[in-house]
């Protein structure tokens, strides 16, 4: 089985504080994985290093077989990895459709593509493709809206569509279910399952364990920047080290 993401012996410290310590784990293709752990355990830092927002102190990151450890952040999406942010970051000055069009950049970055007046061409294939992707996710009616006018749950899902249009086969989602109401959570879950059925692998940071349980086959638990457990959620959840990390050292009291 080939791997979507391989992290080996990764370390990172900020101003002398060790945020990630000798961390290794693998996300095989097709095996959606959750990265869990108490607040401050280093989960978002891992995302930031994989996407290139932070450099690494030591270790290696491989995405779909390509070593991206020293690759500029801008180039990494070309290897098939895209991410979402804790607070959805769609571009507020652009409409929904335009946000998706920016997502297509990796596949349309030549000079000719940059200066094609696609907005003057009715039904240009970029717009068609973006609209189709929206329709497919049941979000078609939002295409021409301003981003800020949309419900939070819809914004999160548009973020997903943007990542797929960028051709991402590995999606890193930072707390996708946070702030969603139950029906929005369900819509998001269905959307993610749909993506997984089409071959996308997910790496998810999430606190809602029911949500994790329903989409992830594997769980990696971090505490103080170190991996303390790994495996299926049902097993990890029984691990005393995990219980202690979550409930605290006097958990059994």
């Amino acid at each position, binding site marked *: 089985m080939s791997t979507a993401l391989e992290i080996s012996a990764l370390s990172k410290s900020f101003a002398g504080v060790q945020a990630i310590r000798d961390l290794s784990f693998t996300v095989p293709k097709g095996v959606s994985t959750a990265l869990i752990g108490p607040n401050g355990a280093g989960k978002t830092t891992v995302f930031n290093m994989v996407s290139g927002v932070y450099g690494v102190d030591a270790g290696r990151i491989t995405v779909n077989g390509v070593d991206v450890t020293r690759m500029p952040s801008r180039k990494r999406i070309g290897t098939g990895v895209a991410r979402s942010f804790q607070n959805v970051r769609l571009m507020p000055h652009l409409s929904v459709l335009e946000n998706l069009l920016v997502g297509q950049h990796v596949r349309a970055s030549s000079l000719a593509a940059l200066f094609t007046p696609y907005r003057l061409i009715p039904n240009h294939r970029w717009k068609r493709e973006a609209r189709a992707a929206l329709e497919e996710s049941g979000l078609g009616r939002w295409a021409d809206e301003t981003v800020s006018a949309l419900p939070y749950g819809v914004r999160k899902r548009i973020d997903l569509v943007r990542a797929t249009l960028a051709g991402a086969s590995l999606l890193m989602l930072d707390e996708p279910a946070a702030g969603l109401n139950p029906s929005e959570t369900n819509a998001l879950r269905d959307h993610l399952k749909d993506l997984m059925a089409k071959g996308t692998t997910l790496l998810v940071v999430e606190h809602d*364990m029911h949500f994790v349980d329903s989409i992830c086959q594997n769980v990696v638990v971090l505490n103080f920047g170190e991996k303390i457990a790994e495996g299926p959620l049902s097993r990890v959840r029984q691990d005393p080290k995990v219980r202690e990390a979550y409930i605290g050292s006097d958990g059994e009291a």
Partner: protein
Amino acid sequence: MALLEVSALSVSYGRVAALIDVSLRVQEGEIVTVLGANGAGKSTLLKAILGAVPVKGGGITFADTDLTRAAPHRRMGAGLVLVPEGRRILISLTVEENLLLGAHMRRDTTAIRREMDAIYGRFSNLAERRHMLASCLSGGEQQMLAIGRAMMAKPRLMMLDEPSLGLSPLFVEKLFDLICELNRDGLSVLLVEQNTGKALKVAHAATVLELGRVTMDGDPKALAADPRLQDAYLGGAGGH
């Protein structure tokens, strides 16, 4: 009457409801802890009590004064103080200036000086570095500074937002000892914590938030034994 009385408080960020009908009270001299997974609304609750986020509905009464619409500086003048999440030490100020900042609303210079010396007595690490920029402190020392800074406001109720976050186990011990010590000296405490076990052990009362609502509250010992509490964190621990 309770020192702090929060009744049916609601807060929204845009369309997202962060708190829905949350009620809570802290009696004089108590430690009350608020538990819940990330995103449950705990930080929002503390910020709303401080007045740093606007309230949509409900009321906040502190020391028999209705503070629901008061500005943060007025609430702090009444004796409320927050030790914010992530400590929020000012890195362009020295350690001592951070402490003095805590007392920025007070005029009693000699008392301020005396209390600062007491804090230095308690935290010798801070005393040694009093004239250095606060950015040189370790995470644990920064947390001590944040608490010291809050002490300098001479509060009646101290709210702490995830004080143990990112601290080593040894420091977490020290931190909880400190909270208990301050409480014994007469300070009331409202504590938001990830470290549920420890928090329940020191608290006189506890409230659990889930998705912005109070789902459980009452005696911390009973809560600690309640399997539903673990469910709130680990999603059906023990299996359904």
